[in-house]
């Protein structure tokens, strides 16, 4: 998308790049660490490069590493990525009116490249979907500028991490940095009492059911936690949307 010069000529493209550049350092550092974590946990350099370039979703990549190493079946890994990525499903509902004026391949390219920070900056800058052709072009250019910076810093630093990882001895245990980033992401998602409970119950279930074959303990943990929260919602009369407002 950023290859299209008609988008790059819009002043909003530069504006989008500028707004994103302040957070690019953090994104780059996270990419660096993900690159190191992938190689340090036993993926080959080619696999790690392919994962950075294709999957392009940090938390889903980090969550997949232990499952790949354990030889979990593909459907369990894909189901876990899907659950980890569910927040994007919510974002896509929000972005729909902003993108529906484009042909399908074009809006899907934008969608694929729009990760957490681009979504957050874009929807903060434009509270309303475009109402005219000029606004459509401006918004598309801003979004493209946003994710152009994100893509460059994430991919560039991931590749740097993959290269540097080979210089660091395995015994340092730097792969644990990936686990620590996931700790931060779990904490960021645990915003309501029921979500904190869901995380704790899922963690306990995953440990208790660890002996299940095919890494099914992950699937069991998600199922138990979600069903328990559904039951508690009814039992205590908690409304998840109202809880979000707190």
């Amino acid at each position, binding site marked *: 998308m950023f290859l299209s010069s008609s988008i790059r000529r819009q002043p909003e493209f530069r504006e989008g790049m500028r707004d994103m550049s302040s957070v690019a350092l953090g994104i780059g550092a996270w990419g660096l660490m993900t690159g190191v974590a992938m190689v340090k946990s036993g993926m080959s350099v080619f696999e790690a490069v392919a994962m950075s370039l294709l999957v392009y979703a940090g938390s889903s990549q980090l969550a997949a590493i232990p499952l790949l190493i354990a030889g979990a079946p593909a459907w369990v890994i894909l189901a876990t990525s*899907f659950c980890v990525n569910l927040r994007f499903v919510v974002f896509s509902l929000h972005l729909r009116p902003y993108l529906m004026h484009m042909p399908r391949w074009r809006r899907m390219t934008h969608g694929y490249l729009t990760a957490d920070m681009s979504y957050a900056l874009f929807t903060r800058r434009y509270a309303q979907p475009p109402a005219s052709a000029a606004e459509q072009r401006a918004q598309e250019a801003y979004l493209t500028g946003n994710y152009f910076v994100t893509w460059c810093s994430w991919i560039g630093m991931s590749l740097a991490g993959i290269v540097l990882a080979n210089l660091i001895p395995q015994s340092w245990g730097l792969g644990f940095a990936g686990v620590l980033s996931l700790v931060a992401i779990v904490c960021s998602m645990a915003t309501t009492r029921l979500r904190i409970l869901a995380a704790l119950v899922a963690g306990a279930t995953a440990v208790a059911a660890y002996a299940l074959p095919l890494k099914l303990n992950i699937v069991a943990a998600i199922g138990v936690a979600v069903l328990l929260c559904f039951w508690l919602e009814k039992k205590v009369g908690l409304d998840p949307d109202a809880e979000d407002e707190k």
Partner: protein
Amino acid sequence: MTLGTGGTTDPWTLAVIVGMAGVTVLTRCFFFILDRPWGLPEWAHRALHYAPAAALAAVVIPEIVMAQGHLISTWKDARLYAAAAGAAYYFWRRGVLGTMLAGMAVYLPLHLGLGW
């Protein structure tokens, strides 16, 4: 998949990676793939509140408290203190990068210095 630096590439892992790229596209574009507007059933909307945190916690907690497939039975494990320090940092200051650095600042001395 082999353990250790410079693992070998295998076709199954690459196929899973391509599948995961498909999951990225599917989830990021979910509601604007089709032209006609549509919504999710009510139960799926409610599951969206809990499933992401549950999925990540189910992956991450065993990585902290288990070794060789068993719950660890010692307190001398650097991962416990590093994860606690990371979580504490997160609730104090926020930010993925800071959490990772704070956790590693606890992990590396314990792991390399004391061999925990």
